[in-house]
């Protein structure tokens, strides 16, 4: 089998836990050539960038800073062009087409993902939690993935024709189950923070996804 191409992955660095993604990606030396902070339109439009990650943070802040920094439209173009993108927590909110519980006057979104999300779905920080998730698409999938949910959103509804569910969370016996990870073509979205754990399986899954997308998209 031919040597796999090492990827250059951009992480949106306007605000939030972007360096955590970068530190985790840098451990995957066999697959990642470079993990790069993205703050400007020029950095995002670098043609050698293979994939993008939108980190956790405050989605309101990220959206406002993105607009004022002239990078909101280029982000939409990235998603529309079918290039790989993964949003964690705030990143997932930005990728969704509809978001509830946004600030007064609403919130600008990048969009592209045919889902409706609800921000801060579990409540304030005292309701943040860690839960074991069963994620069938991950390598070594009989081992649960530790989902870190911090003032986390949930996915309230999806367009089942276009979107597939990747993971659900159940806080305990008798509790309601929520969709917390989905995929739609080039877009992956998780309500939790794999970048705040030492488990690299979600990042490895994303890297595989990026390669699959690259091999099926005409250059």
């Amino acid at each position: 089998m031919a040597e796999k191409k090492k990827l250059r992955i951009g992480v949106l660095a306007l605000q939030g836990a972007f360096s955590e993604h970068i530190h985790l990606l840098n451990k995957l030396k066999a697959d990642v050539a470079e993990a790069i902070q993205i703050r400007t339109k020029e950095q995002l439009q670098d043609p050698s960038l293979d994939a993008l990650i939108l980190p956790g943070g405050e989605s309101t802040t990220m959206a406002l800073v993105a607009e004022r920094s002239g990078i909101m439209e280029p982000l939409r173009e990235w998603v529309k062009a079918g290039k790989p993108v993964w949003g964690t927590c705030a990143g997932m909110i930005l990728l969704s087409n509809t978001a509830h519980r946004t600030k007064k006057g609403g919130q600008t979104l990048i969009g592209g993902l045919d889902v409706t999300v609800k921000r801060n779905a579990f409540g304030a920080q005292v309701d943040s939690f860690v839960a074991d998730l069963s994620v069938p698409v991950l390598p070594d999938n009989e081992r649960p993935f530790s989902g870190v949910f911090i003032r986390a959103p949930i996915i309230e509804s999806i367009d089942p024709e276009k979107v597939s569910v990747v993971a659900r969370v159940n806080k305990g016996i008798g509790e309601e189950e929520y969709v917390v990870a989905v995929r739609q073509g080039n877009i992956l979205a998780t309500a939790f923070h794999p970048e705040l754990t030492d488990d690299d399986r979600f990042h490895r899954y994303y890297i595989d996804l990026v390669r699959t997308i690259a091999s099926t998209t005409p250059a």
Partner: protein
Amino acid sequence: MTFSTPSNLVPETNGAAVAAAAKNDFIVKAGLAQNLKGGVIMDVVNAEQARIAEEAGACAVMALERVPADIRKDGGVARMSDPKMIKEIIEAVTIPVMAKVRIGHFVEAQIIQHLNVDYIDESEVLTPADEQHHIDKSKFKVPFVCGAKNLGEALRRINEGAAMIRTKGEAGTGNVVEAVRHARQLMGEIRKVQAMAEEELYVYAKEIQAPYNLLKETARLGRLPVVNFAAGGVATPADAAMMMHLGMDGVFVGSGIFKSGDPAKRARAIVQAVTHYNDPAVLASVSEDLGEAMVGINCDLLPEEQKFAKRGW
């Protein structure tokens, strides 16, 4: 090394389960601070200011009764805010809401936690309630941020359960000199411990009154083991960007915004400055035409008893 008790030395059985729960608890507390990085947390005294801060791009707001500049001016005892005001602010915005309690005042902290605030600041800006003990922060479900002016102080607070640290600076002065002093002190000490031999670390831990295990971890990481923001005197986009260059993870702005001529514009400019701290072209453009900055106080002329940074033990 981290100490672990030999098995079955005492008749306890659930040690591992307790440790695992404590670990998850801290991941969630420190994780919110990780999500706030690269952002600006703004002091607000009512719901209207909180909305201005949210629209400007603040990643969180700090609810307090009077901004530090007014606490200085008015004098008297400064305490936690009225729960009614905190509730109104929580109602008004979707970003995290923090609130201040007095050093050592664990009942104020219980009250604030009950209000579902997202972070508590055990703050030297308020009048201390206990001159020996800080709050045992590990007992709370809500995370805490604490001020520090050097490495020993930061690690003592983390040992008590703080999940986030900020430099103290000198709040309410509009003068960045003390924030710079504390950031330089902290980062300088971290660089120093990175070069130390094991036996020197034991001695240094005693010297700066820091728990050895946390000092050792700091030396290994080359940074504090939790998120560390700048605070205390930041008044301009340039001040904020400078603090980011000094290795801070984000910035608190207190009186600097709502004591200035055009708070909304200045707040937006400081948010842009923290993201693009490395780009002088952006800094030049956002610094333009911001109106009056807060007047500011020369810290050399501040009487000793009015220095907030001295509070904390």
